[in-house]
């Protein structure tokens, strides 16, 4: 079978299972006696095993098989869940993730031999050694009036024991089963070569018996032996029972001690998994749809521009309808791209746990707002920065238990990851109740690097944020394997900015640090204010626009040589877009101001003219060579002309 077709399906589905497995492991770690997480773990590992075996992924199959065995022992309470077992299971989950990744990509899987051996060791210590049953076909116990049937199974019969059970079941429909050789219990355990005999008391003819047995499947040969040699004088069926050749109660099939006692209840109980119904669509399809709708939005803009010139009521009416449909379509497609953040956040508890363990800290990690939705591509992008923030918090923010006690804090540190919806943006917030950023150290280092004047004695929140976010500025001197060196808040800030978002940092010494990333819900289409300067059009994403206003020439003031705008009780710095794009100012004209707001910082930007709001399709670009670092992308307007999108974060 062409398995490659299924590889992608296998990958996504098994990754979901690994994520659920990690989730259950964390639950189990908190409540080692609970049966529900064990049942869920067993199910997850079992499903992966079945899929991997089908795909021919040997490493995944072996690993999931050993995990399953171990979990089965846990389920049967033959293995007690302690730190050692948890450790092996966590390592197993990690190894599963890696081997799945490797094998689906056709790479050799890393060696898991040691881990497998450890799992086997634990399982072996738990399992009572199976009773060795006689496997050789010996003399057929003969029976009064019975017919002996020699049966040979096909060489590669799967689950021989079950097949035999089915064969015996068939035989029983024809008469009374008197004996089997080897004993039925041995046959059912599957510990025999493939040949066995049964003795049946039946009125059916040889052909009928052979036919019935063959119909059970995987029977290579069923042959009714001539009764002549079979009968050796009378032997009571009681004697047969005593010899063990026949089970005491033929109606009760579960006789063998080597059979794991089935427990259907555990398999069925405990549905703690995420329930979500959906169909799978290749993300590339959604991307294509998004691009198409983007083009459609551009065409609509063009049509609207034409209609404004043509001034035909019929055209206007039709266009109004069409553009409403385009908007609806756009909404639908955007919505279909939204996924709840838990799809990425769900792997974080495991990560935080590992980070906490390796640094000897106790962390109570809470995730809030799991159901908040973000564009799929945005969510993929934000995962890594969030990981970074979490690691930072565990590594540098939260103190070890004794240090916390000494500071009068509860020994367990709190770490919170929250997603919140705020107008057109989503906030992702990581907060801890750790030691906070040491301002004196930041200040000292900034002085050493010549970033602030020697005379400065304090830093504002803002200044501190800017310092910490500078590439390469890190206050930790040691390198830990968690956060590494040199990659700090600055990397996170850069990534968030490139996504059209902004980052905010608040830190109180001794009380903790909160980092908030404000992100647009989607990357592709944003609502923007369009503004004209000279003949050029610029777009300012609405995410950062708090208001717009007219400004008569010369009403603004100057404070300390800088132009400012008095807005109600606030004084905002004022920036001329004309200055930024190196055009001469036009002093005597009425101009317009767009008030920008980002992370509690505000500024006004002066433009010639406002064109109104519009949905624009963001086309990312790498920046113009030697160009101004002012723009984050470009868009195509209704008239086909390009417009640059202002990167608000560089203005503030």
């Amino acid at each position, binding site marked *: 079978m062409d398995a490659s077709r299924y590889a992608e399906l296998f990958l996504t589905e098994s990754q979901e299972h690994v994520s659920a497995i990690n989730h259950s492991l964390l639950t189990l770690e908190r409540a080692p006696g609970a049966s529900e997480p064990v049942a869920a773990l067993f199910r997850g590992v079992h499903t992966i095993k079945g899929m991997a075996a089908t795909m021919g992924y040997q490493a995944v199959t072996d690993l999931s*098989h050993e995990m399953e065995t171990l979990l089965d022992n846990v389920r049967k309470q033959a293995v007690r869940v302690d730190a050692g077992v948890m450790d092996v299971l966590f390592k197993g989950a990690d190894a599963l993730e890696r081997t799945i990744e490797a094998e689906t990509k056709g790479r050799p899987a890393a060696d898991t031999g040691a881990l497998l051996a450890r799992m086997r060791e634990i399982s072996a210590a738990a399992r009572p050694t199976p009773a060795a049953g006689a496997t050789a076909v010996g003399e057929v116990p003969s029976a009064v009036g019975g017919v002996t049937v020699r049966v040979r199974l096909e060489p590669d019969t799967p689950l021989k024991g079950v097949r035999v059970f089915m064969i015996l079941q068939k035989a029983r429909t024809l008469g009374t089963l008197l004996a089997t050789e080897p004993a039925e219990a041995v046959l059912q355990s599957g510990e025999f070569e493939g040949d066995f005999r049964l003795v049946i008391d039946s009125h059916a003819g040889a052909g009928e018996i052979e036919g019935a047995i063959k119909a059970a*499947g995987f029977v290579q040969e069923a042959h009714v032996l001539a009764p002549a040699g079979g009968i050796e004088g009378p032997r009571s069926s009681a004697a047969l029972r005593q010899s063990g050749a026949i089970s005491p109660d033929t109606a009760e099939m579960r006789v063998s001690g080597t059979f794991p006692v089935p427990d259907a209840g555990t398999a069925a109980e405990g549905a703690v998994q995420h329930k979500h119904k959906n169909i*799978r669509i290749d993300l590339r399809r959604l991307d294509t749809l998004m691009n198409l709708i983007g083009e459609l939005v551009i065409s609509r803009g063009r049509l609207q521009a034409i209609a404004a010139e043509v001034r035909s009521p019929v055209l206007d009416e039709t266009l109004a309808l069409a553009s409403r449909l385009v908007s609806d379509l756009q909404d639908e497609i955007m919505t279909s791209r939204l996924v709840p953040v838990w799809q990425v956040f769900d792997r974080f508890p495991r990560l935080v746990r590992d980070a906490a363990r390796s640094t000897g800290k106790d962390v109570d990690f809470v995730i809030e707002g799991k159901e908040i939705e973000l564009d799929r591509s945005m969510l993929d992008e934000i995962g890594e920065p969030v990981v970074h923030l979490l690691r930072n918090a565990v590594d540098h923010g939260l103190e070890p238990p004794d240090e916390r006690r000494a500071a009068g804090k509860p020994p367990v540190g709190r770490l919170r990851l929250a997603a919140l919806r705020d107008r057109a943006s989503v906030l992702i917030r990581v907060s801890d109740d750790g030691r906070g950023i040491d301002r004196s150290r930041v200040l000292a280092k900034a002085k050493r690097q010549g970033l602030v004047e020697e005379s400065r004695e304090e830093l504002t929140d803002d200044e501190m944020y800017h310092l910490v976010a500078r590439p390469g500025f890190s206050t930790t001197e040691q390198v830990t394997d968690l956060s590494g060196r040199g990659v700090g808040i600055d990397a996170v800030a850069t990534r968030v900015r490139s996504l059209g978002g902004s980052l905010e940092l608040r830190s109180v010494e001794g009380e903790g640090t909160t980092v908030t990333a404000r992100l647009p819900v989607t990357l592709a289409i944003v609502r923007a204010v369009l503004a004209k300067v000279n003949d050029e059009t610029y777009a300012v994403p609405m995410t950062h626009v708090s208001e717009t206003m007219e400004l008569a020439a010369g009403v603004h003031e100057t404070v300390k040589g800088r132009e400012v705008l008095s807005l109600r009780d606030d004084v905002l710095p004022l920036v001329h877009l004309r200055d930024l794009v190196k055009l001469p100012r036009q002093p005597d004209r009425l101009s317009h101001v767009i008030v920008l707001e980002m992370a509690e910082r505000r500024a006004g930007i002066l433009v010639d003219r406002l064109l109104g709001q519009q949905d624009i399709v963001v086309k990312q670009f790498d920046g113009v060579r030697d160009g101004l670092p002012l723009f984050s992308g470009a868009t195509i307007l209704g008239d086909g002309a390009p417009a640059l999108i202002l990167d608000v974060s560089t203005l503030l």
Partner: protein
Amino acid sequence: MSHTVLICDDAIFMRTMVGDILQQAGFEIVGEAETGIQAVEKYKALKPDLVTMDIVMPDMGGIDAVREITRFDPAAKVLMCSAMGQQALVVEAIQAGAKDFVVKPFQPSRVLEAVQRVLG
């Protein structure tokens, strides 16, 4: 007329694969179920000629589902899909009324043979 099949497995991967095997052999897949409860409900609604049933599923396992289905329709033809190491469960499933079983990893020929035995 082609035989109708209800596929019960909690893994989409497995449903797809079993579905492909059977479809290529001319069967009509009339429904899929992800849990034992769904399997029973869909069996009652669809009355398929054949059911393929995974053993380990959330909510209600395959064995209980077989029990429910055969209680509703003693002539129901259920093929268990099991993995290595599930002997005892397969035996239980057959006692509960399943007609045969296949073992993962699935080979199309094996699946079709088992289906023929069940429908035969």
